């Protein structure tokens, strides 16, 4: 008779991380949703831009007051200059220049360089803050479900309070109090955004806990930790992935909103901070407000497309 090691017998589902066939199956289903592939493509482009882009463009914070409000290549604007000596108004056409293909802002900063930097910031904040939120949510959700009793009660009441808190006001408040830096922004969004995940994981864990394969592995002497890491987490992994991909756009939007109202990290250029500048030069340089907005929009759209496709791919009931 072979010796049975604890926990080995009860594994009913292969964890996603080692099952190549399952990955292949989900990938196949995802591929049927063309929009989600387009989204994935754009996200890939953004990631590459965020990693390598800054090496290729100039310093996004470099100002040059000789080239203020330069329009993008192919566009031109009229600029009227009032001359004090001659008392005349001269109108000149300003054309876009190839060295600043997307134009410059009111301080002469290169738009392309700023947008590239913004891509890096958005992705960084989006991934890190979502990571923190999902990790916390999963941890607290599982904890709540497994410990039960007063721990569960206290955690869930705390979740209620956090969910009722006027979310954006809380963000603004904390970022203002602790000072606007990238680290604070990431931490705050991460530390306040875990509630939905916690609830979902908790209810999922509660229903899984009563399933036969968990009982079986417990009967074989598996510890709670082992049950959680070998059975529970793998079983909710698809849920976690979908949740993460669908909450990234919200996080990116939150960071952009904070930067837009002037609570962005002054040491880095994000799309929100560019929009903040652009808001004040709508009549003289429209592109400063248009370009980062388009990037923000496309990014959020891509994550929404991709997340939607993922959800359908992981949902056994959805026909793809």
């Amino acid at each position: 008779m072979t010796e049975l090691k604890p926990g080995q017998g009860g594994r009913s589902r292969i964890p996603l991380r080692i099952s190549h066939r399952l990955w292949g199956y989900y990938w196949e289903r995802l591929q049927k949703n063309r929009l989600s592939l387009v989204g994935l493509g754009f996200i890939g482009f953004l990631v590459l831009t965020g990693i390598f882009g800054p090496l290729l463009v100039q310093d996004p914070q470099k100002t040059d007051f000789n080239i203020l409000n330069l329009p993008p290549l192919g566009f031109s604007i009229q600029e009227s200059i009032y001359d004090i000596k001659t008392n005349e108004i001269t109108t000149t056409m300003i054309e876009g220049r190839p060295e600043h293909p997307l134009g410059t802002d009111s301080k002469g900063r290169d738009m392309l360089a700023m947008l590239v930097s913004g891509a890096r910031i958005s992705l960084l904040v989006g991934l890190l803050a979502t990571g923190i939120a999902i990790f916390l949510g999963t941890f607290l959700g599982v904890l709540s479900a497994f410990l039960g009793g007063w721990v569960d009660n206290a955690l869930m009441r705390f979740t209620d309070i956090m969910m009722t808190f006027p979310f954006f006001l809380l963000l603004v408040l904390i970022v203002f109090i602790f000072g606007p830096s990238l680290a604070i922004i990431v931490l705050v969004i991460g530390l306040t955004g875990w509630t939905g995940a916690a609830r979902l994981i908790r209810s999922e864990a509660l229903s899984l806990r009563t399933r036969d394969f968990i009982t079986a592995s417990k009967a074989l002497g598996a510890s709670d930790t082992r049950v959680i890491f070998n059975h529970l987490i793998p079983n909710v992994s698809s849920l976690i992935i979908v949740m993460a991909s669908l909450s990234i756009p919200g996080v990116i939007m939150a960071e952009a909103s904070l930067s837009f109202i002037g609570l962005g990290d002054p040491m880095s250029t994000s799309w929100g901070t560019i929009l903040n500048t652009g808001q004040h030069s709508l009549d003289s340089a429209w592109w400063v407000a248009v370009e980062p907005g388009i990037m923000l929009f496309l990014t959020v759209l891509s994550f929404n497309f991709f997340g939607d496709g993922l959800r359908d791919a992981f949902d056994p009931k959805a026909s793809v």
Partner: protein
Amino acid sequence: MRSYIIKRLLYSVIIAWGILTITFILLRVGPTSPVDRYILNIAAKGQDVESVRQAIEARYGLDKPIIEQYLLYMGNLLQGKWGWSFSASQPVMELIGSHWIYSFQLILLATIFAIILGVGLGILSAVNQNTKIDYATSIFSFIGISIPGFWLGLMLILVFAVYLGVFKTFYDTSYPIWSLENLRQLIMPVLALGTGELAGYVRYTRSAMLDNLRKEFVTTARAKGLSERTVIGKHVLRNAVLPLVTIIMFDLGSIVFGGAYLTEIVFGIPGLGQVSFNAIFANDYAVVIAVTLIGTFMVLFINLATDLIYTYLDPRIRYD
């Protein structure tokens, strides 16, 4: 039923208390105190800074231990004393009383706009499932969900105010609140705030309608010889509305201090969003706490209202 409402109200009070406490602590642990800012002005006038500081701290009880301050503050709140706004030099309640209507009006109009169009398009999309109308609506709703509301606001200003001159670039507070002129200048803010909500409602309505269109009672309704309009508009919609109510109400709670906040800032509408924004930057504690509390109460009230509306709409649910 009554005991249920009482229970819910008690729970709401507990949640509000939790939020109050968190806000209070956040404000007190922050690196700057409101007195510092006030004192900067005094110092400029050449008065003795330290004695003024002590006088102020004694006057507002800021020299006492934090627990005592907290109890004092709670005691005042229970007596209806909401405190004094440093920055606006008037009682907090007066400040809020003169500004809440702007937020209320904006949110009300945007919500009505979003519900009517969103539900309408959702029904259209569901009834014409898998047709061009359906696909076009889907794409539109994806775009609407992904477009940042504040950026949409900027773009509307750019196109309709700066270039076309249809609207003014700033919000004119001289009009009476419900006058046509005021409603006209709210068109852009309502679009900016409502589009995201609208897009969400399209998706939820569509899926709720599709869920119910497949139900057997729809066949029964048709077999009774009812017109298609009655079948869809009465039998299906009435059931689809149930999940929609939850989503719409939840959304309402989240835009109170999310989208509405940013929209007010973009368009310069002097609502509670602006007020709390200014208060946060001015370290005006009393206002921040009051606005946070009001926001919380709104959310709690909306949650309770949702439950009550639900019992009215769904005869199967009774809270006893």
